[in-house]
């Protein structure tokens, strides 16, 4: 066996819930610590260093929680759908467990995105809610997450539940590009993209960097929570395996 084969074999070991349990247990504290540090930096830049916005006054600072939660709500759904696709393609148990671990966090971020958006919309637009394309499609995303969790809990057999939820997640993933591009395709009240990879950003440097750091902080938080949650899910599903008895001691 060549060295390359040994290395690939080592990586595939972690597709087994037993080994992934240990790996996740070692990794999640690091992600949590990284998230805390990034959040500290992001809040310091966002709340203390960044200047006042000319048009929106201090209310614009909601951007430092609204944008991260919105980005995460979309990212987590895509990652969840990717795990679902892997599970359907390779028939692995762990893929379904990871998708189940991600769903509640994604739903929470979607709800927060809607709530912080409302709290931003009221002073800026004068309305708690408008039925424009972006808000409506974000609301649909929340229903998709809730439907995923409801379908999961109503099917008793975990393998069948994972596969059915995988199909549902893949059908719903078409909503994510709609949310993302809604501000481009329609005239909406929601502001357009101010950050792009090709043009210079239209906002001041501290604001931009504060936002980026907060997005990274929320991303690390999501990874940490998902890894912690998947450990519990692994134990729940594999409870009759021998290694679980040893892990409890």
């Amino acid at each position, binding site marked *: 066996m060549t060295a390359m084969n040994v290395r690939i074999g080592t990586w595939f070991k972690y597709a087994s819930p037993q080994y992934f349990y240990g790996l996740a247990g070692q990794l999640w504290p690091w992600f949590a610590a990284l998230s805390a540090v990034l959040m500290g930096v992001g809040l310091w*830049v966002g*709340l*203390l*260093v*960044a*200047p*006042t916005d000319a048009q929106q*006054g*201090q*209310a614009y*600072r*909601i951007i*430092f*929680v*609204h944008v991260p*939660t919105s980005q995460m709500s979309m990212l987590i759904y895509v990652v969840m759908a990717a795990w679902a696709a892997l599970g359907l393609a390779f028939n692995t148990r762990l893929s379904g467990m990871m998708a189940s671990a991600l769903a*509640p*966090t994604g739903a*929470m971020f979607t*709800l*927060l995105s809607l*709530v*912080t958006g409302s*709290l*931003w919309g*009221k*002073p800026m637009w004068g309305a708690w809610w408008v039925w424009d394309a972006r808000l409506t499609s974000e609301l649909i995303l929340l229903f998709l997450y809730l439907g995923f969790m409801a379908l999961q809990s109503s099917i008793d057999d975990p393998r069948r539940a994972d596969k059915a939820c995988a199909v549902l997640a893949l059908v719903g993933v078409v909503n994510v590009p709609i949310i993302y591009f809604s501000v481009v395709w329609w005239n909406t009240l929601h502001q357009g993209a101010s950050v792009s990879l090709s043009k210079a950003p239209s906002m001041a*440097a*501290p604001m931009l*960097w504060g936002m980026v750091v907060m997005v990274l902080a929320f991303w690390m*938080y999501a990874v940490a*929570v998902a890894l*912690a*949650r998947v*450990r*519990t899910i692994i*134990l*729940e599903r594999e*409870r009759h395996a021998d290694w*679980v008895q040893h892990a*409890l*001691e």
Partner: protein
Amino acid sequence: MQIGCSMHWSSFSEFWAMGGYAVYVWGSFGLTALAMVAEACLVRHRRQALMRELRTDADGCVGVDGRTECGERCINAQRP
């Protein structure tokens, strides 16, 4: 990347008031923080409940370090 050390605010009450938008800004940050802390607590609670359940066998004996404190009825006592 330049982050100036000079704070933007001249007093704490100004910081707290957020230019009149205190309810909206602190409401958003507060709810977000609350949700994230609550989620972490729920994950921990779920794990602890599961551990309690897995450590308790059918006779209601709680296994500690592979041993139990029950009598011969307890099936844990027969495990190596």
